């Protein structure tokens, strides 16, 4: 119970909550609702970072792995931001497409290196979350990820203002560049911590903020706690479903969430936005 059940529950909650927070920060910054770290190259860059560490410094302690993969994730997110700035704002779908291509390119390179060195198995562990291996002593890093997500709350107003666009943000006296850097660091840390501990859960950062935005808007001070709560709950629910549906075998949480998430996302795309009041 204490050794595996409680840690597994907590891990699902923490990973879901922090990934959802990372998703909304990314969406706010690129001013586009169809992105998240897992679809824009950030997760792939984090995986590349861990892979490189495994190859070049095989004896690297966990801490060094964390630092390096967070660094590569940050670089990946920053490059994506720069790419997006060059896109015309009149073509919002170009943003997620660019993200997918960018992410796929990095992933292809990562996969090639992994293949060459016979490390493909590791890669699939990082990119597809699995909570069955979670036990006491092997998930605690997610607490840090959760703490980083809580930290994001202190910048909620600044993130919201940054989402109004650079000019409005400067007009309100915001240090726009600094806020971007803080936000991207939060995204990078959450992404890399999640990948190292349980692996990437796709769609959480994409779907959860969209659901919350639809009903409660985008004022981060109000929505961030809701996004974290819903992200944690949905991932925990997906993990439970994955465990029970084909008992005694398990379906990975990423697959369950992917299926559920796609359905919800399609509904979001085609249904009219909810009116407020």
């Amino acid at each position: 119970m204490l050794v595996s059940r409680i840690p597994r529950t907590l891990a699902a909650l923490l990973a879901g909550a922090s990934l959802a927070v990372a998703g909304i920060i990314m969406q706010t910054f690129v001013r586009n609702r169809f992105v998240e770290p897992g679809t824009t190259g950030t997760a792939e860059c984090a995986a590349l970072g861990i892979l490189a560490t495994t190859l070049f410094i095989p004896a690297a302690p966990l801490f060094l792995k964390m630092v390096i993969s967070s660094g590569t994730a940050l670089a990946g997110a920053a490059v994506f931001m720069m790419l997006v700035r060059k896109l015309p704002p009149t073509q919002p779908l170009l943003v997620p497409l660019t993200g997918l291509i960018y992410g796929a390119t990095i992933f292809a390179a990562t996969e090639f290196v992994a293949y060459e060195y016979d490390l493909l198995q590791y890669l699939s562990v990082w990119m597809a979350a699995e909570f069955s291996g979670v036990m006491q002593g092997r998930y605690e890093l997610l607490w840090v990820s959760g703490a980083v997500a809580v930290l994001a709350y202190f910048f909620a107003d600044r993130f919201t203002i940054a989402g109004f666009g650079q000019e409005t943000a400067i007009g309100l006296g915001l240090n726009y560049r600094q806020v971007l850097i803080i936000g991207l660091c939060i995204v990078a840390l959450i992404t890399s911590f999640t990948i190292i501990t349980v692996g990437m859960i796709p769609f959480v950062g994409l779907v959860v903020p969209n659901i919350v935005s639809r009903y409660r808007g985008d004022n981060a001070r109000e929505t961030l706690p809701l996004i974290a709560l819903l992200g944690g709950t949905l991932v925990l629910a997906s993990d439970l479903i994955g465990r029970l549906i084909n008992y005694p075998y398990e379906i990975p949480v990423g697959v369950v969430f992917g299926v559920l998430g796609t359905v919800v996302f399609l509904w979001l795309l085609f249904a009219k936005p909810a009116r407020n009041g």
Partner: protein
Amino acid sequence: MIKIQNVTFHHGQSQILNDISLDIPKTGVTALIGPNGAGKSTLFAVMARLLPIQSGSISFDGTDIRKTASRDLARKLAIMRQDTHFASRITVRDMVGFGRFPHHQGRASQEDREKVAEALIEFDLADLADRFVDELSGGQRQRVFVAMAYAQDTDYLLLDEPLNNLDMHHARNLMRQLRALADDHGKTIVVVLHDINYAAAYSDRIIALKQGSIAAHDETDAFMCDEIVSQVYDMQVRIQTIEGQKIALHHI
């Protein structure tokens, strides 16, 4: 007073602003006009610190914008730019509330809330306060942005072509509101306008830019004469007085 001294701006090889020096007195409405590509929006962006000053200096009441923190400037001047790509779902009340951010940095006091409530009433937004900004019409949204700038409570208000995308009704309303902000609240307003007749009707003075330089700068009444306007736009324009209002007949 806004003091602009020897400001130049170039983008690659092309000179966009060419040694601009201007004094814009405090209070009243100043219109910035000129043909396409004259540098109006660039001058606006430099004044609003959206573009860096490449050479020269700009100060508001002696506060040099290059030597002052952006956060402090946000309590001195509010800016409003046409933003066609506004994606956030924010309620009108919260949006106007963000106008107070430069004053409270995230911790709104009772005074801040009162100021927001006042702005909502002043711009006739009280009924819309709980609606999301992205669900409003263009005219309503424009009003929200002006109310936000009003809530920012600065001495100076700079607007870049605020009449774009507004129909006649909303355009006139907005200009009347700007006039009222200058007359009743003592604000100093600088507005980039495309249509000279709005400038003629609502501003106290007009500054005309042409090819990156100041082509003319005068009180509105003196500015509105055949020679000056024709020379600014490189075309024959007749000015007529109708019901005491000078009007440029530029379209016939």
